[in-house]
C-alpha cells in the first residue's frame, strides 16, 4: 500500500523551519506560532495515517512512498523513498505528539529569549530530521535523518553558545555522534559490498543467505552507531553536557526522541541481529553496563537536569538491553521507549518549570519544599516519578517489568547476570529518583530570598499534565492484550514468550522488582529525609562518591585516551610538516643555491686559471681517449 501523505510529515516542519530561518527577525512575532502549528499539523497527518493503518489488516499496514531516485550509480541504487509501518508510526506519533506539546511549552518557556524564533526553527528542523530518520526505507535515507538530528541537537545544545562551555558541549555531542556515524556508514558499506543493497527489505531478504560473520560485522557497526546516538557505553559522555541546551530541548531530544534512535536502529535491524548472536550479545552487554552506569551516575548528581540525563542514559540502557534480547525483547524495548518518552519528557518539563520558578537555578540542593509553591509541577512530576521507578499501575511498571523478566529468562548464567543487573538498576533508579523528588519538593526551603518560586503559566503546565496522563495510562494501554506486541509483530519476528524455560514466574519477577524499588526508596528516605540536606555538596565524602560525582571519570578517561594523545599527535604532525616535508622542499632549493655559489668560485677572473681549466679539460679528454683506446 502506498500513500502520498507520508512526505508531508517531514515536509511541513522542514518547510516551516526553512521559512523561520530565512525570514529572519521579521518572523519574530509569529515564528513560535508557525513552528507549533507545523509540528501540530504534522501530528495531525500522522494521526490520520495511523487511523488508515488501523483500517488495514496487519500485513498490509505498511505504507511506502517513493519520492525520486536519489543516488543511482552502477549497482548502487538508492531511492529517496519513505516507509511508514507499524514500527515507524509509533515513533511518528511519539515525535510529533510529544514534540507538539513541547513546542507549546516552549512558547512560554522561551518567551523572554530574543531568539525564540530561531529556537522554533531548530525544533522544527529536528522534528523533520527525526521523522526522516524513522521513515527512511533504507539505511542511507536513515543516515540522512540520523545526522540531521545530530545537527539539530548540535544547534540546540549550543543555542546559547555565547557561553563557551555550552558551545563546547555542543561540539562534544556532535563529534561523539560522528563516532557513531562512522559505525553506521561502515555498516552500510559492508551491507552494500556483501548484499548489493542498502534498503531495509532488500537486506532483510538477503540476510538469510549472508554469512554470520558479515552480519555480525554489520551488527557491531550498527551497535556503535546506536551507542553514539543513544549515549550508550562507551560513547555516553556527551549526554550529561548536552543539558546545556534549553530544557525543552533536553525533554524532546535528549529524553523522549533522538536519544532513543539507537533503539529504533537495532529494532529496525532485527533481521540482522537475530542472525548474529555475537552482535546481539554485545548489545545486551552494552545495555546492561549503561543502565547501571547511568543509574550510578544519577545517584550523585545535584544538578536536576543532569540527574535526569543520567536517568535517561540508564533507561535507554534498559531499552537497548531489551532490544538485545530480541526477538522477544524488541516490542518491550519499544514499549519502554514510548512510556519513557512520556514520563521522562514530563519530568524534564517539570524540571524546566522548577527552574523557571527558581530563576534558572539547577542545583537541587538549593531547592526544597517547592511542593507548596508549584503544586501542579509537583503532581505531574510525581506521577512521572512513580512511572519511572515502576510502581504499578504506572506506565514504567509494565514496560520495565517486561524487560527485567525477559532478561531473567534470557537463559542460563547470561539470564541471571542480566536479570540481576536489571533488578539492581531498578533499585538504583528508585533511589536517585526519590532523591530528586525529596531534594526538590519536600523538606525545608534552601533557596535564598531573591528567588520567588511560583507556579508556571498554563502553556507550560498543560503539556506537563498531558504527559503525566500518558505516564499514568500508557503502560496499561500498551499491554492490554499485548496490544503493542501484536501491533509490532509484522516487523519484528513474533515474540512468543519464553523460548527458554522461565527462570521465574512473572509474578515473582514483579515482586522482586518491587522489593528492589522499595529498598531504593527507603535508602533514599533514610539519607535525605532523616538527615538535613546541606545546601552545598558535602566535601567529606568517600573516594567512591567523588568518582561517581565525576561521572565515573568518563571525561578523564576520554581525555587520557583520545584528546591528549590526539592533540600531541596534531602538534607533532604540524611541526613535521613544517620542518621535514616542507623542509625537504626548501632544502632542495637551498642546495641548488648553495652549490651554485660554490661552483661560482671557479670563476676567479684570472685568465691563467681559465686557460688552466681549458687545459685540464683537454687533458681529461686525452686521458679518456687513452683509456678507451687501450
Amino acid at each position, binding site marked *: 500500500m502506498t500513500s502520498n501523505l507520508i512526505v508531508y510529515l517531514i515536509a511541513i516542519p522542514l518547510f516551516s523551519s526553512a521559512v523561520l530561518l530565512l525570514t529572519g527577525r521579521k518572523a519574530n512575532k509569529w515564528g513560535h506560532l508557525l513552528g507549533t502549528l507545523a509540528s501540530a499539523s504534522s501530528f495531525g497527518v500522522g494521526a490520520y495515517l495511523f487511523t488508515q493503518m488501523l483500517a488495514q489488516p496487519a500485513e498490509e499496514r505498511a505504507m511506502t512512498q517513493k519520492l525520486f531516485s536519489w543516488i543511482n550509480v552502477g549497482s548502487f541504487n538508492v531511492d529517496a523513498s519513505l516507509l511508514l509501518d507499524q514500527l515507524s508510526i509509533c515513533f511518528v506519533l511519539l515525535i510529533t505528539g510529544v514534540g507538539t506539546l513541547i513546542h507549546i511549552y516552549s512558547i512560554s518557556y522561551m518567551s523572554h529569549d530574543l531568539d525564540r524564533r530561531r529556537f522554533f526553527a531548530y525544533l522544527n528542523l529536528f522534528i523533520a530530521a527525526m521523522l526522516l530518520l524513522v521513515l527512511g526505507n533504507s539505511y542511507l535515507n536513515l543516515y540522512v535523518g540520523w545526522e540531521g538530528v545530530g545537527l539539530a541537537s548540535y544547534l540546540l545544545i549550543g543555542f546559547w553558545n555565547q557561553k563557551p562551555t555550552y558551545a563546547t558541549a555542543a561540539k562534544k555531542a556532535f563529534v561523539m555522534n560522528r563516532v557513531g556515524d562512522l559505525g553506521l556508514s561502515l555498516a552500510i558499506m559492508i551491507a552494500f559490498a556483501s548484499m548489493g543493497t542498502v534498503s531495509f527489505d532488500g537486506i532483510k531478504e538477503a540476510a538469510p543467505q549472508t554469512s554470520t560473520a558479515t552480519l555480525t560485522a554489520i551488527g557491531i557497526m550498527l551497535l556503535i552507531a546506536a551507542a553514539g546516538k543513544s549515549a550508550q557505553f562507551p560513547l555516553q559522555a556527551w549526554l550529561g553536557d548536552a543539558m546545556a541546551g534549553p530544557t525543552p530541548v533536553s525533554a524532546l531530544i535528549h529524553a523522549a526522541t533522538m536519544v532513543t534512535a539507537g533503539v529504533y536502529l537495532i529494532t529496525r535491524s532485527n533481521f540482522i541481529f537475530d542472525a548474529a548472536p555475537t552482535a546481539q550479545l554485545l548489545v545486551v552487554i552494552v545495555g546492561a553496563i549503561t543502565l547501571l552506569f547511568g543509574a550510578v551516575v544519577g545517584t550523585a548528581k545535584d544538578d536536576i537536569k543532569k540527574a535526569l540525563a543520567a536517568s535517561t542514559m540508564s533507561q535507554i540502557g534498559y531499552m537497548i538491553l531489551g532490544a538485545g534480547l530480541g526477538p522477544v525483547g524488541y516490542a518491550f524495548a519499544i514499549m519502554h521507549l514510548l512510556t519513557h518518552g512520556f514520563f521522562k519528557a514530563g519530568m524534564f518539563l517539570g524540571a524546566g518549570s522548577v527552574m523557571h520558578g527558581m530563576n534558572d537555578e539547577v542545583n537541587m540542593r538549593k531547592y526544597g519544599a517547592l511542593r507548596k509553591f508549584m503544586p501542579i509541577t509537583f503532581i505531574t512530576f510525581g506521577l512521572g516519578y512513580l512511572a519511572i521507578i515502576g510502581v504499578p499501575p504506572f506506565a514504567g511498571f509494565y514496560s520495565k517489568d517486561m524487560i527485567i523478566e525477559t532478561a531473567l529468562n534470557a537463559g542460563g548464567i547470561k539470564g541471571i547476570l542480566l536479570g540481576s543487573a536489571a533488578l539492581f538498576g531498578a533499585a538504583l533508579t528508585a533511589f536517585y529518583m526519590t532523591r530528586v523528588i525529596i531534594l526538590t519538593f519536600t523538606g525545608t526551603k534552601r533557596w535564598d530570598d531573591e528567588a520567588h518560586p511560583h507556579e508556571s503559566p498554563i502553556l507550560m503546565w498543560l503539556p506537563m499534565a498531558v504527559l503525566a496522563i500518558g505516564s499514568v495510562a500508557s503502560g496499561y494501554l500498551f499491554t492490554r492484550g499485548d496490544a503493542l506486541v501484536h501491533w509490532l509483530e509484522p516487523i519484528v519476528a513474533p515474540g512468543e514468550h519464553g523460548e527458554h524455560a522461565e527462570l521465574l514466574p512473572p509474578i515473582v519477577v514483579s515482586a522482586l522488582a518491587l522489593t528492589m524499588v522499595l529498598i531504593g526508596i527507603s535508602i533514599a528516605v533514610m539519607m535525605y529525609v532523616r538527615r538535613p540536606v546541606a545546601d552545598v555538596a558535602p566535601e567529606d565524602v568517600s573516594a567512591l562518591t567523588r568518582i561517581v560525582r565525576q561521572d565515573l571519570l568518563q571525561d578523564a578517561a576520554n581525555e587520557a585516551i583520545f584528546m591528549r594523545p590526539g592533540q600531541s599527535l596534531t602538534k607533532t604532525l604540524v611541526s613535521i610538516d613544517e620542518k621535514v616535508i616542507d623542509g625537504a622542499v626548501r632544502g632542495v632549493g637551498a642546495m*641548488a643555491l648553495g652549490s651554485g*655559489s660554490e*661552483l661560482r668560485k671557479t670563476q676567479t677572473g684570472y685568465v691563467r686559471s681559465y686557460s688552466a681549466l681549458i687545459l685540464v679539460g683537454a687533458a681529461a679528454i686525452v686521458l679518456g681517449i687513452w683509456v678507451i683506446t687501450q
Partner: protein
Amino acid sequence: MVFNSPTLSYSLLSPILIILAGALIGVLIEAFVGKAVRPIAQLSVALGSLVLALIQVIRIRDFTSTAAAIGSVVIDGPGILFQGAILVIAIISIFLIADQDNFTSSPAALPGSDEERQAAQSGTVLTEIYPLTLFAVSGMLLFPIASDLITLFVALEVLSLPLYLMAGLSRHRRLASQEAALKYFLLGAFSSAFFLFGSAYLYGYAGTVSFAGIHAAVIGGTGNDVILLLGIAFVAIGLLFKVGAVPFHAWSPDVYQGSPTPITGFMAAATKVAAFGAMLRLFYTVLAEAQWQWRPFFMVIAIITMIFGSLVAISQRDVKRMLAYSSIAHAGFLLTGVIALNKAGLEASIYYLFAYGVATVGAFGIVTLVRDSSGEVSDLNRWAGLGKRSPWVASAFAFFLLAFAGIPLTSGFIGKFAIFSAAYESGATAVVIVGVLSSAIAAFFYIRVIVLMFFTDATEDGTSVVIPSILTRLTIFISLAITVALGVFPSPLLDFIKPLAIFIR
C-alpha cells in the same frame, strides 16, 4: 704545364661576398667620408649589405653544390639556414649597435683622460664598429659552410678577430671592457691553437684537409684511431670553446659582462649559430660514422654544461653574467641536438638556434635600456621594481626570460621540446632527463628576475629606464614579435626548415 683556373660560382657565394664588400666600403667610408655623415652612411651600408645578403640567401635557398669554391665550401640547406639565421640576427642587432652611446668615442684614448673627454664632448662617434661587425658576419657566414679544415680555420679567425676588438669598445667601465677583450683574445687564440692542432691530426689521419676526404677515411677506418680521436678531440675543443661549453666556458661570463651590451647580444646570438652550424656539419657529416668515438664525450660535456650553467646562474647578481650563464646552459641544451645525430636533431637545433638567438638579442637590447647617470645598470638588485616603473620594458624582458626558461607558448618551449625529443629518439635518455631537470633549475633564476622586477619594491637609486631610441625599439620589437610568433605558430618556420635541413657531402 696546364694551369686550370679555379671556378667560383659567385651567385652561391654572393652572401659572403656582399658582406665583405660592405665591410670594405665601410673601411673606405671611414677614410673618405666626413664625420657628420659617417654614422648614417655606415649604418645604411651595413644594413643594406646585410639585407641584400639575406635576400641572396633566400634566393639561392634551393641550390646545393659542393663545388661552389673548388670544394672548400658546400652550399646546402642547412648552410643556407644558418646563414639566414646569422643574417637575421645581425640585422636585428645592427640597430642596437647603431645606438652609439654604448661605445667609446675614442678607443685609443686612456680611460678617464682629457683626450677621451674631448672626444666625447666633440660628439665623435665610433663608426668603425660597422665594418668590424660586417667582417665578423662574413666569418660567421663562412664558418658553417666551410668544407675543408683550412676554410674552417680561416673562417673561425675571421669571425673571432673583429669580436675580440669589439669586446673592448665599451663607453662605460672601459677598463672592464678592455679586460674582456684581453681575456677573450688570449683564450680565443689559445683555443684556436687547439683547434688547429686538432685539424693537423685530422689531416694526418685522412691525408687530406677536405671534409669529403676525411669522411671517406673515417668510413674506410684504415687509419690510426688514436690520431683520429686526438684530431676530433682538439677540433671539438676549439668549437666547444666558441659555444661556451663547460669546461671551456670560462671566458663567456667575463666577456659578456665586460663587452658593450649590443656586442654581447650580437656575439652571444650569432657566434652560437655559426659555431653550432660548423659543429653540426662536422659531426653530422664528416664524423657521423665515428660517433662511437665522440658521442660519449659529448654526452658528458652536455650534461656537465647544462647542470653547471643552470646552477651557477642561480647565484648571479649581475644580469649580464646571469644571461651569460644561461647561454652556457643553452649551449648544453644545443649539444643534445648535436648528440641526437638524426634529422630531427638537425631541424630542432636550427630552430632552437634561431629562436634562442633572436630572444638573446632582444634581452640584451633591453639590458641597454636600464641605466643610471654612470651608464648601464646590470646589477640585478637595482632592477627591483622595474615592473612598476616601466611595465612594458619589464614585461618584454620577462617574456624573453620565459622563453629562455622554455615556458609553453614561447619559442623556447618549442625548441626545447623539439631538441629533447630528437635526443630521446636517438636513445640519449640520460641527457634528456638531465636536460629536463636542469631546465627546472634554470626556471628558478629566470623567475627570480621576474620576481625582482614585479614583486619587489624599487630602491630609489636613480636607476631608470631610458626611453629607447627608435633603433633599439626596433631591435626589441622585432625580436619580441619573432619570439611570440615562434611560440604560438612555429609551423611556418618548422615547415621551412624541414625540407632544407639535409646536409650534402
